[in-house]
C-alpha cells in the first residue's frame, strides 16, 4: 500500500472508530463545576470589575501590571528581531530544472526514492507499480543512472523488490529496501506491500548483489544506515508492545560478504539519522522517552562500540546530519516557550561536542554533503494562486530525448511532446516549494534558488512537506524526493552557490 493509500485507509478507520456520541452527563457535570468556578478575566476585566464594585482593592492589579510590562518588552524585542531578520522570498522557478528519469509506460507509476553520487556519475533509485497476472500490482525496484545528471537511462530493474533509500560508500553504493516485495490482495484491488528487509550493493548501479540475513521480525524497522570501514552499518529500531508506551532499543547490524552481523544494541535509544566521516560513524536520535531533545552517538570501530556525545541544549532537535570537508553539520529546530521552534544549525568536528547556533533566516529539515560543501533544504505547501507558484513542466530526458543540447542552467520550459506532470489545471491547488541553502562550513549560509516541485491536487489535505536528497553530478547538484514521481531536479553549481543572501 502506498503512503497515500495508507493515509486514506487510516483516515477512514479513524472516522469509523470515533464515537458518535459523548457519554450522558459529560456536559452537565462540567457545567456544574463551571457554575462554581470564577473566570480568569485578566487585567482589563479585573479593572472594570473592581472599578464597578471594589475600587479600594486596586492593589490587586499590581501582578497584572507587571506581567503586561514584561510582555510588552518581550513583544517589542521579538518584533524588532523579526523586522531585522525577515527577508523577501526570492522568485521561484529559476535555476532548478525538473527532469524525468523514467520514460515510457512506467513513467506514471514510478517514483524516485533516492539519489547518490556513485557509479558512472549519479545514480537514482526508485520503484514502480505494474499490473500483475494475479489482478493485484507487483512492485519493481529501478535504478536510473546518468553521467552528467541531465541525461538519464534505466540501468536495472528488480522484480518483486522495493528500494527505499541509497547510501554511498567509498567503493560501492548500497540500496536498502525489501526483497520478495508483494502487495496483499484485498477486495479493493491491492493491499499494502510487504517483503523481507534486505540491502543490495553495487559498483555501477546496473548489477546489484543481495545482502540478506536481517531479522525477519517485522517489528524491527530500519531507520537509517551509513558506511564505515568499507561496510554498510544499518540501524534497526525495535518496537515493543509491552505497556502503553513502546519501549525501544536500536540494534546495529553490519553488512559483510556473507550477510548481516549483529554488532551491538544501544538500549533506550531511537536512532533516526546516521552519517560517517573518515571511518567515524555518527548517529543521531533520542534517548527514550525524551523525544524532544536529540542525542548523538559516535563509533570509531564500525559500529561495535558507541560513545554518547555531550548533551545538546534541551529542546534541540536535529532532523538531519551530514559530513563534509569541514566537519559535521546537523540541522533542526529548538523548541521555544511559545511552541514555535527556532531553526538551528549544529556543527561539530568530532561528533562528540556540538555547537548549536540559530538559523533565523529559514527552517532547514534536510542536509546533504556535495563535493565537500553542504546543501540543506526545507519545503512547504503554498497557495498556488500566487503568480510564482506554477511549476515548470518536467522534461523527459532519458534515452528518448537527451537534454545535452540545452543550455546549462537555463530555466527550460520547452514545449516538447514528452512534457509531463503536472497538468495545468493542478496549478489551482497547493504546490510544494523548497528553499535551498548552501554552506561550506555550516556557519555561513547562502540561500539558493527556490525549487518548485509538483502540485498537490487536493488543497485541503496536503501531505507532509517532502524531504529532498541531494547528490553531485558534473552538471551540478541533483535533487530528488519520493513524493514527486519519476523526477529529479538539477541546478548548475554556479547558480546554486552564487546569489544574494
Amino acid at each position, binding site marked *: 500500500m502506498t503512503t497515500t493509500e495508507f493515509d486514506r485507509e487510516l483516515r477512514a478507520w479513524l472516522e469509523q472508530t470515533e464515537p458518535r456520541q459523548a457519554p450522558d452527563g459529560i*456536559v452537565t457535570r462540567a457545567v456544574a463545576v463551571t457554575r462554581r468556578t470564577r473566570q480568569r*478575566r485578566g487585567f482589563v476585566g479585573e479593572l472594570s470589575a473592581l472599578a464597578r464594585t471594589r475600587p479600594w482593592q486596586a492593589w490587586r492589579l499590581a501582578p497584572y501590571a507587571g506581567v503586561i510590562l514584561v510582555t510588552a518588552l518581550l513583544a517589542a524585542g521579538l518584533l524588532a528581531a523579526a523586522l531585522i531578520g525577515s527577508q523577501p522570498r526570492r522568485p521561484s522557478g529559476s535555476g532548478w530544472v525538473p527532469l524525468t528519469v523514467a520514460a515510457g509506460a512506467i513513467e506514471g507509476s514510478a517514483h524516485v526514492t533516492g539519489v547518490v553520487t556513485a557509479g558512472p556519475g549519479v545514480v537514482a533509485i526508485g520503484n514502480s507499480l505494474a499490473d500483475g497476472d494475479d489482478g493485484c500490482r507487483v512492485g519493481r525496484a529501478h535504478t536510473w543512472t546518468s553521467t552528467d545528471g541531465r541525461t538519464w537511462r534505466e540501468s536495472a530493474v528488480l522484480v518483486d523488490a522495493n528500494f527505499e533509500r541509497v547510501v554511498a560508500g567509498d567503493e560501492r553504493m548500497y540500496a536498502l529496501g525489501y526483497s520478495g516485495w508483494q502487495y496483499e490482495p484485498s477486495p479493493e484491488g491491492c493491499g499494502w506491500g510487504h517483503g523481507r528487509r534486505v540491502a543490495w550493493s553495487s559498483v555501477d548501479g546496473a548489477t546489484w548483489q543481495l545482502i540478506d540475513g536481517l531479522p525477519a*521480525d517485522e517489528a524491527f524497522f530500519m531507520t537509517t544506515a551509513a558506511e564505515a570501514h568499507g561496510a554498510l552499518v544499518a540501524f534497526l529500531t525495535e518496537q515493543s508492545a509491552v505497556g502503553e508506551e513502546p519501549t525501544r532499543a536500536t540494534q546495529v547490524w553490519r553488512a559483510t560478504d556473507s550477510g548481516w552481523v549483529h554488532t551491538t544494541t544501544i538500549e533506550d535509544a531511537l536512532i533516526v539519522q546516521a552519517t560517517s566521516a573518515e571511518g567515524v560513524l555518527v548517529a543521531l536520535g533520542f534517548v527514550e522517552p525524551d523525544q524532544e531533545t536529540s542525542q548523538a552517538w559516535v563509533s570509531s570501530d564500525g559500529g561495535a562500540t558507541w560513545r554518547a556525545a555531550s548533551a545538546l541544549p534541551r529542546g534541540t532537535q536535529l532532523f538531519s546530519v551530514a559530513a563534509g570537508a569541514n566537519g559535521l553539520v546537523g540541522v533542526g529546530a529548538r523548541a521555544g516557550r511559545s*511552541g514555535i521552534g527556532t531553526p538551528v544549525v549544529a556543527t561539530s568536528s568530532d561528533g562528540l561536542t556540538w555547537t548549536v547556533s540559530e538559523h533565523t533566516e529559514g527552517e532547514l529539515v534536510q542536509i546533504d554533503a556535495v563535493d565537500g560543501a553542504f546543501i540543506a533544504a526545507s519545503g512547504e505547501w503554498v497557495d498556488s494562486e500566487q503568480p510564482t507558484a506554477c511549476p515548470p513542466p518536467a522534461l523527459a530526458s532519458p534515452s528518448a530525448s537527451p537534454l545535452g543540447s540545452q543550455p546549462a542552467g537555463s530555466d527550460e520550459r520547452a514545449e516538447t511532446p514528452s512534457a509531463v506532470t503536472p497538468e495545468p489545471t493542478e496549478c489551482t491547488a497547493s504546490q510544494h516549494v523548497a528553499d535551498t541553502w548552501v554552506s561550506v562550513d555550516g556557519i555561513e549560509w547562502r540561500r539558493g534558488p527556490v525549487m518548485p516541485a509538483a502540485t498537490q491536487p487536493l488543497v485541503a489535505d496536503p501531505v507532509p512537506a517532502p524531504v529532498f536528497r541531494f547528490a553531485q553530478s558534473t552538471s551540478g547538484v541533483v535533487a530528488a524526493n519520493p513524493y514527486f514521481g519519476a523526477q529529479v531536479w538539477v541546478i548548475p553549481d554556479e547558480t546554486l552557490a552564487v546569489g544574494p543572501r
Partner: protein
Amino acid sequence: VLESLVEQAKAGDHDAFEKLASSVATRMFGTAYLIVRDREAAADAVQDALIETWRNLPTLRDAHAFEAWTRRILVRSCYRAIAGRRRRIEVRVTEIDATTASHESRFGEVDQLERAFGRLSPDQRAVLVLHHRLGLRLDETADALNVPLGTVKSRLNRATTALRAAIAAEERDIATLERQIA
C-alpha cells in the same frame, strides 16, 4: 451562532456556556477517545478541558479562534488523563465502538488496527488524529500540540512508520496463531 455564544460565555453567561459546551462536546469526546483510547479517561479529559475553557474564556480575544483554542486545551487534558490513568495502574480493556464492527478495510481485521494504534505513544496518536482525522494542516497541528513545526513533521513521520510496523507485527502474530491452531 457559535461566535455569539462564545461572546456571551466570555461575559460570564453560564447558560450560553452550557449551550456552547453541548455543541462541541461530542466532537471533543471523539477526538479525546481516539487519543486516549479509553472512554472513561476521554470523558475526564473532556470535562477538564471544558472547565479550563470556561475559566480562561475571557482571555480569548477572537471568538473565531474558539475551536483551535479549545483543541489545544483538549490535547493537554488528554495527556493529563493518560498520565493519571497510568498512575492508577488500571487494567486496560480495549474498547471498540459499535460502529466499527461493519467497517471493512485494507488493513484487514479492524481490531488488528485497533491494537496497532494502541501500541503507539500518546504523542504519536495525537499527531495522527489531529492531522488525519481532524484534517488540520501541519502548522495547525503544531499549534494544537504546542510543539515546533519540525517536531510535528518528524513525529508524524515516525508515527506512520511505527503504525505500519505495529500492523505488520499484528499480522505476524495472527499468522503464527493460525499456524499453531492448524
